[in-house]
């Protein structure tokens, strides 16, 4: 590592910090802390973007750094904190796996991601190409975070962290996406969080909880049965096909509304 310029060392350090923060998110059960970690991740991303902009002299990176600051460091955490206060969800329930097990899975995921990114890194010509593996790892770790959590709130934080990973990946592979794409993604994420915020209230109103496994049991609820009867009457077919189709016709719609 001797001989690498200092700014590149700092960039590598930022990349390593991003990975560490992803693991911290994976282990964290308090939702408030989770959102704070997301804000810290945004800050590290901001520092990395600024360093890269200064190093390469690419002006559009300053712009995306400003976007990161406004959106990921300030606005989104603020919105999420407000949601937490209004919904009064401070703790996630016990995750599906215990912490140590999740950590071990996380380690395996990181090994997989590093292997996956090796050929991509070989193709890239940027100075930061080694960090692509870390970006892939951050994305996959966010997936794991989303999979192992039950509360809608933590899943959204996982989703946002995944977007951070994508952004960092694009940055280290090609010095950032085209500006129009970046703006589009940023806007998308913002709107997604706003819409999801509304859905949180809807979900809670329906189930008195933000626990998403309630959504899995939708097919056994009363209104569906009533509808099932109606379908039978309509088609005159008491076979197994139509209840299945009713259920499958209903569940994706509910899943999407998550």
């Amino acid at each position: 590592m001797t001989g690498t310029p200092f700014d590149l060392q700092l960039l590598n350090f930022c990349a390593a910090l991003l990975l560490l923060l992803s693991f911290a998110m994976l282990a964290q059960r308090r939702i408030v802390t989770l959102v704070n970690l997301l804000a810290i991740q945004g800050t590290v991303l901001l520092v990395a973007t600024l360093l890269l902009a200064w190093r390469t002299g690419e002006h559009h990176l300053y712009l995306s750094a400003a976007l990161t600051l406004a959106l990921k460091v300030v606005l989104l955490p603020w919105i999420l904190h407000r949601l937490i206060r209004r919904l009064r969800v401070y703790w996630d329930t016990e995750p599906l796996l215990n912490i140590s097990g999740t950590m071990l899975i996380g380690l395996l995921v990181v090994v997989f991601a590093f292997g996956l990114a090796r050929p991509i890194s070989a193709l890239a010509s940027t100075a930061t190409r080694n960090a692509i593996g870390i970006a892939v790892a951050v994305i996959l770790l966010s997936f794991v975070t989303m999979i192992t959590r039950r509360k809608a709130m933590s899943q959204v934080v996982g989703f946002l962290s995944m977007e951070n990973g994508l952004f960092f990946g694009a940055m280290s592979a090609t010095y950032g996406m085209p500006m129009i794409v970046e703006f589009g993604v940023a806007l998308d994420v913002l709107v997604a969080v706003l819409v999801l915020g509304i859905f949180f209230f809807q979900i809670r109103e329906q189930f008195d909880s933000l626990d998403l496994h309630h959504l899995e049991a939708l097919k056994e609820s009363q209104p569906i049965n009533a509808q099932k009867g109606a379908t039978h009457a309509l088609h005159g077919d008491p076979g197994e096909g139509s209840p299945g189709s009713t259920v499958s016709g209903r569940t994706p719609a509910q899943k999407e509304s998550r």
Partner: protein
Amino acid sequence: MTTIEILTQALELITTLAAAPLFLGWVNQCRAWLQNRRAPSIWLPYRGIRKLFHKDAVIAESASPLFRVAPYIVFGAMAVAAGIIPSMGTRLPFTIAADAIALVGLLATARVFLSLAAMDIGTAFGTLGARREMMVGFLAEPALLMVIFVASMISATTALPAITENLATQELALYPSLAFTAVAFILVLLAENARIPIDNPATHLELTMIHEAMVLEYSARHLALMEWAAALKLFNYACIGFALFIPWGVSTRASGPVVLLASIPLLAAKLAVTGAGLAFIETMSAKLRIFRAPEFLAVAFLLAVLGLLVHLLLGA
């Protein structure tokens, strides 16, 4: 083997043996200050050891010879470990015999004999302490090995003096992998030396104690050796930390006897800061339930492995 090599080796061994209780006293003093208590004298560990050496030993009737031998083995292992760790100079003729992995094995040997001796008497407390010690040990050891592997991969050697020399003499660089492993090492140090998140060194009462439960049956010179060995262990761990993460200031192959002399006050300064930091961590954190200890050490292992992976990917 030149004169300066022998001199370095002798100086290191003597300093470590002599200064280990002082370091323990310093940590205790800092802890008392931070907790708004009147601090005990910094020389208290010495007085305790001297007092114990002047007493007559009482040994349980059911004790086997292992019980009598264990303190000498534990103390011996710690003293040998002190000879391997480059705390002042890297020219240690003794280190040809053992590298960093053997050092971990040496520490494990001490642990095994300590636990066996604790179980030997057959009291409930001793057995309980021994089992807990083994649990903490088997979780902490892989983490410690991973920490050492990262440093070894950076320097392409497992010999501790060579690692220290390489890290001390090369151009200053930012190693994220070493930063991760440093945190992991601090966690392992706390767990292995029966410090507060895992065990409370100041207790003789709680059912949660680990180290104190194991040495409960010892008295007089045996207990003195055990306490001294515990102090040595803490000192050794601190010195391993210096060797891996703050290696600057040790006398290297190129430097003369002046640097070797200058490294003594430098080591004292490092130890003073470390002791204060250790006391701070212990004051700030609460003791974990024993069943949370695996989680604590899993974090240490995770950090160390992450350091390893980051080093493999970034080469840093």
